[in-house]
Every structure is written in C-alpha cells, then in structure tokens.
C-alpha cells in the first residue's frame, strides 16, 4: 500500500483475564444439542427485545449433535472464551453428550461469567426461557464491569474468507484484501486466510512463501489432503453460482481466492481453535484429518467464519462476487463486494465496493486502504453492515482433527 499505517493506531478494547483483548462484549447463548435450540433462540430473541441497545449484543450459537465430538467441544470452548465474548449462557436439554459441566467450568476459569440451564431440570420450555432471560440480564451486568483498555493493531487478529465468488472476485476484492493484509502484517497484526480446499492448484506457489521449507512441505501436504477429501466427497468446493459468475474450474477459483493472502511470508499453518502465537500471516487448514467420516469439510461459508472466530479473529473480511449477506455479532463481518453489478443490487449489504476497481474508479491500493480503514473503524466500535442488520448465522458440525505438527509454527520455535 502507498502509505504505511501508523502502528500507534489505537482503539478501546475489553481486557480479558487471559491477557487477550476484545473489540466487542457480546453475551453468547448456546444450545448444546438441537433439542435445546428453540428454547435458546427464544431466550435470545426475548432478551434482545428487552435490551435497549441495538441488536447483536446477545448471540445465539450452538451444536446440534447428540453424539460426542472433540472438535465440536473445542470449538464451543474457543467461541465461548473468545476475547469479544463477555459472558456465556449454556442451555442443555439434559441427555446429550456435550460435556456441559466441563464447558461451564472452562468458561468460568477464563474469567467470564457463565451460567448453565438444563431444560429437563429447570421445568421445561417456559421455565427455562424465563430463567434464561434473567440469566442473560445477570451476565450482561457482569460483563459491563469489564475494564476498557487501549488496544493496538498488533493485538488484532483479522480473518478472511470468500463466499459467493465469481470471475471478478480474484481481480478486485480478493487482491484488495491482500493489500490490506500486507499492511496489517507490516503493523505486526495476525492475519488468517483459509479453506485449503479452495487453494487446490496454488499449493506450490503457496509453499514457496512459507518461512521454512518444512512449513512449505506441511502446506503442500494439507492441500493434497484437501484434494483427496473433496474427491471422496464427489464435489470440489465449487458452487453453481461460481459458474454463473464466470468461474469455470476449482483451480481458477483457487487462484482468485489465494490473492486474499497478499504477499507476506506465510508464518504458520493452524487448525480450527489454534490461536496464532505472533504477528504474521497464517493459513488455516479447515479440512478434517484421517479418512473422510462426517461429510463435507464445511457445509457452508458460515462454518468457516466460526472456525476463523475460534482461531481468535476479532474481525472477518468477507469478499463476495455473487453477493453474500451473512455475518456475526461475535466478530463483525466486513463485506467487500467484488462485482460492481452485484454491488448495485445489494448495496445495503456491503461495506466496501471493490467493483469500482473494474470500472476504473479506484485502484487496488485505494480499496485496500479503504478496507483497512473499515477494520480500524469496526475495531473502534462502528458496526459493520451485516452486524447492524443483525446477522448471526452460526453452524457447527462434526469433524475430526489431529493436532498440528511441530513444523507448522516455526515462529513458536524461534520465539
């Protein structure tokens, strides 16, 4: 980018007991099985209708499965103890496998207020909803006591994802995010890009950017794993809308998606729930390990957003060509629209119009700077468009991961 950002840029964050800082102070209300979903949603809706603040301060999350899954537990723990979260209410039916007591105690150990309601013990639907609304109020008043402290760019984690990509994504929005990432990495922030299944075809050039040859080998191996996994699924990570928008092949989509990563060296390879140890650019491997067992790695974009949040992302940069509307209140989603025609149709859902690049009205550098300014504004408290619209899509499904290998985080070994 033309002007290096001032590393003294600061905003007001929430100081968490674990040393991390948040840019939001959201209360999450989590169902621990689909059977508790309705009760939990009612608690969130009614608590919000009583809340004088704008929507978004109470966030519905959950896991639908009754069978145990280590990944799902870790994701719930990571999201409930995310620095943007000020407190958590867990809602259990009572007979599902999720270890609710352990989850509750881990959230409390993180220094956050947390409560648990078990529908079978609380007296059923109506009683649990009533108790839940009261619990949210208590959690909100506890969370309001958390100290505000100055927070700097080098304490910020920014994730990026593309959804509803088309033939313009890789020309405008994605490389513009890449410019923003380069500036953030230069300011020692942590940047995360992901979806190895959408990087098939880019493995060699990506491996060349790794800070060590061993990390490069891990990156190539994880893309090979993704290709195998998707081959077994029978479909690449390629939606019909991608083809409508001019993308023909997975590797064409990959090359466009890859440009979101910018040009910084790749400092590490992480898996969902891993928090990068130091400033730099990281690749998030979202494809499960072992033989494919539970279906598609991520059944929709929302699952990837949740994994980026579980890795500590405070803000998500979401590029779209066809037009996506999704968001999150835990970590605000900033929409960067690649296609000028889509922007005109869906302007009310977009934060940045990168389509101007195609119409010769702005340069990549200019849009990159605009994205960076949006990151700083949202970190400073301004609501992103999807956040203002109340988007809270959340999806968590079964997966299995092995821990990352010793070559995946060379920076940790150096430090």
């Amino acid at each position, binding site marked *: 980018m033309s002007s290096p950002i001032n590393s003294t840029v600061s905003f007001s964050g929430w100081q968490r007991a674990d040393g991390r800082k948040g840019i939001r102070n959201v209360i999450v209300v989590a169902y621990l099985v689909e059977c508790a979903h309705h009760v939990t949603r009612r608690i969130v809706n009614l608590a919000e209708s009583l809340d004088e603040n704008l929507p978004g301060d109470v966030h519905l999350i959950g896991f639908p499965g009754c069978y145990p899954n280590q990944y799902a537990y870790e994701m719930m723990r990571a999201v409930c103890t995310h620095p943007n979260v000020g407190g958590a209410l867990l809602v259990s039916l009572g007979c599902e496998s999720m270890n609710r007591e352990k989850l509750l105690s881990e959230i409390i150990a993180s220094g956050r207020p947390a409560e648990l309601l078990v529908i079978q013990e609380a007296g059923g639907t109506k009683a649990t909803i009533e108790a839940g609304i009261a619990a949210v109020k208590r959690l909100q008043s506890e969370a309001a006591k958390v100290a505000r402290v100055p927070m700097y760019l080098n304490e910020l984690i920014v994730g990026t994802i593309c959804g509803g990509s*088309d*033939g*313009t*994504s*890789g*020309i405008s929005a994605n490389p513009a995010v890449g410019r923003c990432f380069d500036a953030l990495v230069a300011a020692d922030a942590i940047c995360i890009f992901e979806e190895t299944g959408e990087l*098939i*075809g*880019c493995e060699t*050039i990506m491996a060349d950017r790794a800070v060590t040859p061993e990390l490069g080998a891990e990156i190539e191996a994880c893309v090979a794993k993704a*290709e195998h996994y*998707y*081959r077994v699924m*029978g*479909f*690449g990570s*390629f939606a*019909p809308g*991608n*083809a409508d*928008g*001019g*993308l*023909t*092949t*997975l*590797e*064409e989509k990959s*090359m*466009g998606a890859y*440009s979101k990563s910018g040009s910084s060296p790749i400092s590490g390879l992480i898996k969902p729930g891993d928090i990068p140890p130091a400033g730099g650019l990281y690749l998030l491997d979202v494809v499960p390990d072992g033989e494919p067992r539970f279906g598609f790695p991520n059944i929709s974009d929302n699952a990837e957003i949740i994994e980026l949040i579980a890795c500590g992302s405070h803000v998500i940069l979401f590029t779209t*060509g066809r037009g996506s509307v999704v968001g999150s209140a835990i970590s605000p989603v900033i929409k960067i629209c690649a*296609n*000028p*025609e889509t922007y005109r149709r869906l302007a009310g859902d977009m934060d940045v119009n990168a389509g101007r690049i*195609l*119409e010769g009205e702005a340069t990549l550098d200019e849009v990159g700077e605009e994205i960076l300014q949006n990151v700083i504004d949202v970190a400073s408290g301004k609501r992103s468009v999807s956040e203002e619209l109340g988007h809270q899509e959340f999806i968590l499904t079964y997966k299995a991961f092995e821990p990352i290998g010793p070559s995946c985080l060379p920076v940790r070994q150096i430090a």
Partner: protein
Amino acid sequence: MTQTADPVAPQKPALAPVILLHPNDNILVCVKHISIGDVLLIDGETITSAAAIDVGHKIARAALTAGAKVYRYGAPIGSMTDAVAQGEHVHMHNMKSDYLPSHTRSRQNKNRSEL
C-alpha cells in the same frame, strides 16, 4: 459548431471492455456486460462478439485447441475440451478442471457418476 447525432448513420458498436490479467494469459476477463455485436479489441485486432457475455466471464485471447492449458493470472486454471476461435466465450461448455470436476445445478449427477 455543435455536433448533432445523425439518425441515418449506423450506430458505432460499443467497444467491449475486457482485461488481460497477466502477460502470459491466453484468456481475457470481461469487466462489463458484452452484448452480441459488441466489438472486442484483442491485442490490436477487432472482433465482433457472437455471444452475450457476463461480467467475470472469460474469452479466448487467441485461438485455442482442444487440450490446450488455459492460463489466468499467469497460472494454469484447466484445459480446453473443445477448440475455440479468438474472442469466443471460454467456460464450462469447452473447458474443464485438471483437478476436481466442477458441478452446476444441472450437472451434479453427471459428476457423481464420474466417481
């Protein structure tokens, strides 16, 4: 002197904006909708488009033979399954992935049977 439009003169066809992303590419990307009859300027040559082409879609920079690798961003993004002339639309009907086959709403079953 003020110029006025001559109602008899044929309307000059619109010059369709297509962009080259990398010097080694053999496709160009459409950045504004192309209508049938629009003129494409490709490496100094003008070609009248026989098809309507949407934003984000690709056209051949030069004639391509079946089996030719397609380059975008300077990188291979698949292979031609049919030959195309310069300026023709390059997409699912004449091009394929060298990795995993792409699916559309109507091609899902076909891909499944390829397993």
